[in-house]
């Protein structure tokens, strides 16, 4: 079992780096989804205030 530590560190580094990347993408995706929701609501409100004709409810 010589060099077991190297084996452990090599495999750990692979899963830690990939795991951090997945968390990074996931957090970014959640933040962007929130931003899209916020902007769509704001756009809808401005369009209503400006009297822009709205699409039928089923198209929303």
């Amino acid at each position, binding site marked *: 079992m010589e060099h077991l530590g190297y084996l452990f560190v090599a495999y750990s580094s692979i899963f830690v780096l990939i795991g951090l990347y997945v968390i990074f993408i996931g957090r*970014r995706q959640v933040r*962007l989804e929130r931003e899209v929701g916020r902007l769509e609501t704001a756009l809808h409100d*401005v369009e209503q205030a400006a009297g822009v004709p709205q699409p039928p409810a089923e198209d929303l």
Partner: protein
Amino acid sequence: MKGYLPVTLAAATCLSMLTALYMVFVYVPTEVDQGIVQRIFYFHLPCAWVTFLAFGMVAIAGGLYLWLGHKIWDDLGYAAAELGMLFCTLVLVTGSIWAKPIWGIWWTWDSRLTTTFILWLIYGGYLLLRSFADDTEEIARFAAVLGIVGVVDVPIIIISVRLWRTIHPAVLLTRQGEHGLEDPRMVATLLVSLGAFTIMFVWLLWVRLATLRLRSRVATLRRDLAVLEAGAHL
């Protein structure tokens, strides 16, 4: 269907990774010369394979973007470059950890190591360009050209162990044209690991592309909102 595919890919990644780990730590025999540390190879080589796959995709997507001009090709190139960088970093890290007990050093300016490091620098430059410059068509074209030029280093890395004197082993095919893996269980384990990493790459690429599409949607909505608000103030 839209939400079903990434979940399926994530599940397939987990399943294939667990199978690969079982084969690496339980199924495959220990290599005689290097001992247990040789098992790093079964994840080190798939990382290199995914690196080449990703950077190959950057070049193809870059060519298609320059030819057709569609944003989707630019997004594909960007997503693939980011993943290629992640796996190239893993190749360098795992290779360095493997080198220490076998060669007695963490790093040497060997032909394969140096050309791999150059690849890492090229696509590091690509990602810096994408991160710090504005998201314009001009920058996308620059990035596409850099992605195409950078991939020239990939075949150089592959043949470097034959072109120059090197201490890096030619694993799959030796200089004499022989098979580098002595036991069929080693070949089977390597193939399963290659499959697992390829599935994981497709899954991560899909998720990253979804994020880039969301970013484009945010930019469009912001522009529309600014136009409407400017019109309302007139």
